[in-house]
């Protein structure tokens, strides 16, 4: 069976292990299993935009070099930030032959030089293009009929334009997937608004207010829950609801899922109680109420 080379990134092995777990199960069922590539390192999580410093791109490029060494032509990521960082770093170094030469010279201890032709995909584009939503629909055994779900894209799946996985100001790829799973997909106004990203470390009060705006917008639009594809968005929108509650009396909490968790349910996999432990806002009451447990 053909499989896809998969680049996890650091957080998929720790705080977002349920994202990986559910994705691996889902792709097994859909007939295109993910096989983790070897010897990967942290991609650096954010694309460093200084145009005169190639050193800061090395973390990302080293992963692409490893992929090349392992005779992989493409890699798939789950994490929006890894996807974005790898894409932008790759583009930066292959933008001119001199940059590519320089970054290879910086990695002088490596046995081979990076040629610049690794393709980087996000799982959602693989689902849309290779498996197709019609293909997924055929395998659904437990449609999520009773669930109203908002798709939260965040920033890095749709910006910059060049690497957006869909039309950058009006994407529909996650909504299409949710409809395929049988859920009612709701477009809510704050679906493309930044969650605060790494500001959660130094400005958590500001992030808590962003969480308030985003979750409130989803709730006012009729969502029971929202899905995301980024462990940092998931942390800000899920864990930081605690901070939001402290600052906004009357704030109603909402569980936040990774899209692969809902896919796993719709494809007939049982909900894993270990996944609930990784969530901050317990998703089980909602799933219980909608008879999805």
């Amino acid at each position, binding site marked *: 069976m053909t499989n896809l080379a998969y680049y996890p*990134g650091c*957080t998929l092995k720790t705080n977002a292990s349920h994202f990986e777990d559910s994705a691996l199960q889902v792709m097994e069922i859909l007939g295109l299993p993910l096989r983790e590539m070897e010897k990967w390192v942290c991609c650096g999580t954010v694309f*460093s*935009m*200084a145009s005169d410093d190639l050193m800061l791109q090395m973390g990302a490029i080293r992963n692409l070099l490893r992929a090349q060494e392992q005779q992989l032509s493409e890699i798939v990521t789950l*994490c929006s930030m890894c996807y974005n960082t790898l894409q932008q770093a790759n583009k930066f170094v292959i933008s001119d032959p001199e940059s590519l030469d320089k970054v290879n010279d910086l990695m002088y201890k490596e046995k081979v030089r990076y040629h610049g032709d690794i393709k980087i995909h996000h799982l959602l584009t693989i689902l849309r293009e290779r498996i197709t939503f019609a293909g997924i629909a055929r395998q659904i055994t437990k449609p999520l009929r009773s669930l109203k779900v908002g798709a939260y894209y965040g920033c890095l799946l749709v*910006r910059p334009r060049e690497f957006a996985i869909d039309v950058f100001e009006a994407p529909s790829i996650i909504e299409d997937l949710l409809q395929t799973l049988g859920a009612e997909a709701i477009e809510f106004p704050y679906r493309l608004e930044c969650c605060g*990203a790494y500001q959660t*470390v130094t400005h958590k009060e500001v992030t808590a207010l962003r969480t308030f705006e985003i979750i409130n917008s989803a709730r006012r639009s009729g969502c029971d829950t929202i899905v995301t594809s980024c462990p940092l968005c998931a*942390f800000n929108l899920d864990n930081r609801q605690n901070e939001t509650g402290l600052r906004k009396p009357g704030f109603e909490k909402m569980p936040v899922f990774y899209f692969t968790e809902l896919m796993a349910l719709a494809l007939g996999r049982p909900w894993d109680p270990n996944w609930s432990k990784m969530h901050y806002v317990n998703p089980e009451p909602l799933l219980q109420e909608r008879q999805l447990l």
Partner: protein
Amino acid sequence: MLYRISKKNIRDRSLERIEEISGQSVFDCYQCGNCSSGCPFVDYMDLTPNQVLRLAQFGQIERILASETIWVCSTCLQCSTRCPKGIDVAKLMEAFRTVKLRKRAGQLDPYQIDVDDLRELPPIALVGCFRKKTA
């Protein structure tokens, strides 16, 4: 709001450096305000993104470097995608941060992070924050 602008620093070298690091020309900006209206963190900034561009056009680089704005930016890229002149505003913000970081004047001291937070924060948050804010 009253700004004092000195002819002395309208034409000094610091703007050239910013333009070199960012690869952008600040003189492309015609102050439409799209960037500031799309910015999710504008309410917490002392200078809005379009004000940063305007001050940069007048060579007031030191004022920008001393602002809270450049550190509150979350690199969401909303400004860059909406600019009608194609200015990569996020890259410009990064250039200001870069100048400070290269002088070892980053905003974050890792030892100041709350210990309880550290237990919860995922690696993605810490790595991202350290890359953006520590020298």
